[in-house]
């Protein structure tokens, strides 16, 4: 998946993957406000409660500062996400689109805390199809993984950090992570990290801009996705025509603002 020497990054492959993965990050953040996650169970009889003005509003990323990541992690992630999605004429790089901000906010929140994971033992090595198997929350998992990767990179690259090695070498390292060939000290495999990392990068690049990534809807413009429309029934019969207008996020689009 990473861009190797003599190999142009294939954006179509990324897009196909993103479609398969969906928007797990976004759904995760939304669930925070329903009061069910980690809270006592509730029973409703007769009718569901309703209160005017009460909203299950999404947990919007705020501007400025890092909530979870330290400087070294920001350096690693900024370099790594931009090898997965480098800038090109069709769209911004991952870091330009805010993916590192997205990752930081997700790791600082319920996703990073593993609020929806079962994190008790026994911790056995699962099968491939069983997905994430770790005693770590995703936030801990990122921290341990990046530390171990930087140690491995430092050993092979004369003490350099990942962000300071040449791009083709970064690509080679990412490929080793993808295959699991990059051996790390400790309980984490580079393959397990790469799997989660790639998924989160795609989520961040194509997420609603409200979560920090996909700045200005750039990724949606690139693929012609109209955004957070509730309903497409008006366009159902307009076959093979783009939906009109610029993409709209949960928080709107520039045309909402007085010029």
């Amino acid at each position, binding site marked *: 998946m990473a861009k190797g020497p003599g190999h142009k990054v294939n954006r179509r492959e990324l897009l196909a993957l993103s479609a398969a993965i969906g928007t797990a990050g976004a759904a995760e953040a939304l669930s925070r406000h329903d009061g069910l996650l980690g809270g006592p169970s509730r029973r409703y009889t007769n*009718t569901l409660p*309703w209160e*005017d*003005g009460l909203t299950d509003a999404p947990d919007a990323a705020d501007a400025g500062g890092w909530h979870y990541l330290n400087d070294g992690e920001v350096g690693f992630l900024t370099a790594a996400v931009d090898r997965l999605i480098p800038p090109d004429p069709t769209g911004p790089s991952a870091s330009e689109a805010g993916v590192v901000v997205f990752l930081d906010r997700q790791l600082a929140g319920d996703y990073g805390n593993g609020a929806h994971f079962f994190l008790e033992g026994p911790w056995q090595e699962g099968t491939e199809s069983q997905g994430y198997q770790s005693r770590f929350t995703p936030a801990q998992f990122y921290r341990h993984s990046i530390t171990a990767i930087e140690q491995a990179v430092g050993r092979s690259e004369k003490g350099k950090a990942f962000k300071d090695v040449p791009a083709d070498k970064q690509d080679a390292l990412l490929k080793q992570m993808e295959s699991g060939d990059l051996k790390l000290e400790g309980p984490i495999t580079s393959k397990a990290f790469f799997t989660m990392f790639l998924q989160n990068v795609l989520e961040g690049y194509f997420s609603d801009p409200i979560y920090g990534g996909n700045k200005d809807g750039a990724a949606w413009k690139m693929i012609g996705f109209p955004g957070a429309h509730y309903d497409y029934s008006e366009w159902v019969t307009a076959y093979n025509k783009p939906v009109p*207008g610029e993409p709209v996020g949960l*928080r*709107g689009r520039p045309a909402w603002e*007085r010029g």
Partner: protein
Amino acid sequence: MNIAPPRSLGGRILVAIAAVVVLLILISAGSWLWLKTTQPIVSDPPPGLLSVLTEPIPDGPNADLIRRGRYLTIAGDCASCHTSRNGRPFQGGLGLQTPFGIIYSANLTSDRENGIGAWTPEQFFRALHDGVAPGGKHLYPALPYPHFTIVSRSETDAILAYLKTVPAVHYAQPANRFPFPLNIRASLIGWDALEFSPHSFHANPAMSPQWNRGAYLVEGLGHCGACHTPKSILGAEIHDQAYRGAAIENWVAPDLTANPRTGLGRWSAADIVQYLRSGRNAHANASGLMGEVVAYSTSLMSDTDLSAIATYLKSLPPSPSHPSPAPEASAMRTGSAIFFDGCTACHLGGGRGQPGMFPPLQGSSVAQQNDPTGVIRLILAGTRTAPTRTRPSFQSMPSFAWKLSDQEVADVATYVRNSWGNRAPPVDAHEVAAIRSKLNLTHPLTRDQR
């Protein structure tokens, strides 16, 4: 203390002048109270209320009287105000926001100490007809005795007979929160002198029996004017503006006259019946305060009476059309974008709506009220329709307060009020900010978070 209202002309004028002076001083204090005490509207039905209103009344010595009394109690929508959110049916204690303070509804159950269990039919008639409770205690006109005054003695007797069968709840409502001197009930003598004289219903022989039945219900037990008629500075209905619509508790009770834009001009009598029976028709859905009226009153009334109400309402002369300044082009442009992204899912392009489900906005009288309070409130807080026997499912509109800035709410409201043939005064961001504050709703996300 039993104070008889002064009936001599000189006495009435003196008391009236005193009352006006005092009340004018209190207006600003009253507005402040209103702002500080607004509670979120919760539309969960109070437990058990609907079954009390609908379960068959068993045969017995007074069964017919009690059944008639319950029907009249329903026609008067007594339950909506006299049942608090989690209270037992008719126990009272619901705080009503008025521009002058909060008044808590009375216990109407058969409890002898706090309710009407010890009341005589004469006392009950005096309360509804004259606005005077046992012991000469003057009632605040939040109890709409200016309407109930026309209810006949035989009907008040039936209502009391029914209320005496409502299980007693030993509960006393909180003390009203009025500033001095409104907290002195004798001050109401002045109000009554100015604004009220007890009277009976006189049928208009020139009109049909159906029209007269409608007039009796609308003007009397139905007390529609209590919300739908603009109020004077003293909180009394302005009779020459009857049914032209008014703001109430951060809603607008719409114009009910034949005005085709703001009123019921485009509704047929059958549309009105369908709305009152089911809570929905091709033009509008009932929610908020009107949702309660439909849920606990009109949806439980007979089609004959609903048709009579419709006949009377359709005879109201149209309110005058007010000139409406043209909206700014920039507001219409941003409003159009917000409408396209945020509203068309339910209300569809062109504001066509999905009649019976999501109200059309093209031609909507709710959208075109001169006072934009109701539109602003709907966008900011959302609402849920009242469930009825014929339309038992809920329809809800979500709150947009978290998402739209005051300017964005203003612009989309202006757009809806001035598109597809609609015309109504543009909405200003400051009006939105004021209602957002009164409703105690969250501030929207900042631009950085877009």
